[in-house]
């Protein structure tokens, strides 16, 4: 389960504003406006699942300078649970990362019944939402403050995809540049954030403390190495979207942790990052290349990543549920053609 919610989906009539949009004048609730602004600053996204007429409602949001806050709003006559599912898919978020706010108990109960992973909140609590632990990340990084804009760039990218002949042509046209470099002190908050927020593209669910990371950055722990990956494409800069922790011993290089933000899912970035660090290890002369995998219940795709990249194991999980995979250094996966590694 996600401890932190990544997106709040709002009802409109009598929740975001007083009154019913289709019946005349409405007044945006100031406490809701404040909550939306504050959560946005913390990197929490907003969307809308509401009944009504889309054009009318969007105009009201625009008139109140609130429209830019909401990604992929769903204003229609479908059940809200369906709209919530559609929003979660479009934003690549799991349902347990979503909160839903409404003034109507029936709607809240209906969503809670259909989608038990979604946190439901009565609109009377909107003012207090910034105090909820579900919306209180330990640290607010520059990526967090930019998150809404990053998602908007990503949605643009998905729209652009429709003009291309093949998917590969489209990926090549994106001009993806992946910069892989050692972690520096300034990166630590973002790396901690990735470790906390990433569940599906996460190989072991490992958590490091700030002090441990400082030790690694300062070179106090010679055998541990953390690298970060930044992604840029023609739609914008995505910030640090991946991180890798490796430990080394003479001739042995072991990947203890690899995580990639779900924001960049669907374009082979996890494969590009894995291939890049493996090629780097081989170039440094390591002959035994290994990777740990610990099943967390949500990260089957990382096991698939390892195995499809040529890793194999004969081992059973150890006492800590870690399975060790090995790859032949002569047979490493290629970096996808559409990713340029810097």
């Amino acid at each position: 389960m996600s401890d932190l919610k990544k997106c709040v989906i709002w009802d409109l009539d009598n929740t975001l504003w007083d009154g019913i949009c289709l019946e005349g004048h409405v007044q945006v609730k100031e406490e809701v406006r404040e909550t939306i602004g504050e959560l946005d600053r913390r990197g929490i996204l907003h969307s809308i699942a509401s009944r009504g007429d889309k054009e009318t409602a969007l105009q009201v949001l625009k008139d109140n300078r609130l429209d830019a806050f909401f990604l992929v709003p769903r204003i229609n006559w479908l059940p809200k649970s369906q709209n919530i599912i559609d929003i979660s898919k479009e934003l690549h978020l799991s349902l347990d990362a979503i909160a839903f706010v409404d003034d109507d108990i029936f709607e809240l109960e209906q969503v809670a019944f259909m989608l038990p992973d979604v946190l439901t909140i009565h609109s009377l609590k909107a003012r207090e939402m910034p105090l909820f632990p579900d919306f209180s990340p330990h640290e607010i990084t520059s990526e967090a403050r930019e998150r809404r804009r990053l998602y908007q760039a990503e949605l643009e990218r998905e729209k652009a995809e429709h003009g291309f002949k093949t998917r590969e042509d489209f990926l090549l046209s994106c001009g993806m540049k992946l910069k892989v470099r050692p972690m520096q002190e300034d990166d630590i908050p973002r790396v901690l954030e990735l470790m906390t927020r990433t569940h599906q593209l996460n190989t072991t669910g490992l958590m490091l403390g700030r002090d441990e990371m400082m030790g690694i950055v300062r070179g106090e722990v010679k055998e541990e190495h953390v690298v970060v990956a930044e992604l840029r494409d023609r739609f914008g800069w995505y910030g640090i979207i991946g991180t890798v922790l490796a430990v080394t011993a003479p001739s042995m290089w072991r990947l203890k942790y690899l995580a990639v933000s779900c924001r960049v899912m669907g374009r082979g970035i996890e494969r590009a990052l894995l291939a890049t660090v493996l090629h780097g290890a081989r170039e440094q002369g390591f002959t035994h290349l290994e990777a740990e995998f610990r099943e967390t219940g949500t990260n089957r795709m990382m096991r698939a990543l390892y195995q499809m990249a040529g890793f194999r194991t004969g081992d059973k999980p150890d006492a800590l549920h870690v399975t060790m995979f090995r790859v032949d250094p002569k047979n490493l996966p290629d970096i996808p053609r559409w990713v340029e590694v810097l």
Partner: protein
Amino acid sequence: MENDKSSIEATLAEYIREVCLPRNDGVNLKYDTNLFDAGIVDSAGLISFLCFIEKEFDVNIPDEDLVPENFVSIARIADYVCSHQQVPYERS
């Protein structure tokens, strides 16, 4: 059994066209296209695809079997499904 394989391939291709490709890309999809090298499926896409395969063809795919030899292309997946099915596949 050959008939079975081709109908499995057709069903797999239909899924890929619908779920993984923009509307006009379907024509370029071949049964031996490397789905990963062509950027059609990645780690996340593979997991959804596996769920579809398990349900549609009533096969159970253990994690150990997730290797390129079995899953790199539509043709390979169809071979895998053929050899792991309890009962021969019939399009309903």
